[in-house]
């Protein structure tokens, strides 16, 4: 267990509603990532953060925004959820002190269904 929790673990929502997923870490790591996992696509990076208030886009960022106001929390927001955003969302952390061995550790995931 890398000290990562995600909430909620499951959520069902309707198209057009805003949704916020939370990732919380207890390790004080610098880097945090949000991925989505879909059949046939594997894990794809949505957004990542390299420090408080420092975030950047990944490969599938359209329709998502993020915020990181504290080291320990990284929030992913779907401003207006669509059915194509039905997926399993994983948060990951990385210590980030060097380019060498310093790999990502994943949270338990949030299963989101958009009806």
């Amino acid at each position, binding site marked *: 267990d890398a000290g990562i929790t995600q909430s909620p673990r499951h959520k069902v929502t309707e198209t057009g509603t805003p949704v916020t997923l939370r990732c919380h870490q207890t390790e004080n790591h610098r880097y945090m990532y949000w991925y989505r996992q879909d059949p046939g696509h594997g894990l794809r990076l949505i957004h990542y953060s390299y420090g408080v208030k420092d975030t950047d886009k990944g490969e599938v960022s359209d329709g998502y925004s993020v915020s990181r106001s504290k080291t320990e929390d990284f929030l992913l927001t779907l401003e207006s959820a669509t059915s194509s955003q039905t997926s399993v969302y994983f948060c990951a952390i990385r210590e*980030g002190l060097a380019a060498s061995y310093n790999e990502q550790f994943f949270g*338990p995931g949030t299963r989101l269904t958009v009806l």
Partner: protein
Amino acid sequence: QKEVEQDPGPLSVPEGAIVSLNCTYSNSAFQYFMWYRQYSRKGPELLMYTYSSGNKEDGRFTAQVDKSSKYISLFIRDSQPSDSATYLCAVRRGSTLGRLYFGRGTQLTVWP
């Protein structure tokens, strides 16, 4: 072209078999190579990590990297039913941002 290609399987083997899982990658700039294991409805967990070409062994698991052919492999010896999971390969460059590129994952079932 995707950065990492991985046959999704599924792969089904009897207990005790040797399992070979493989990925190819497209960019010679990738320097770090990982294998993650993911049990059903769980998050991926880091299984093996390698930096250079060659083999790295950890118990029943061996990770192999051939940079000349851009080919990475994971071998599981004496496979067990508890090895049944999806195995994801991942690669990254040497930057501190550490962005990972994942294969689609191979679903493995080891039957008793």
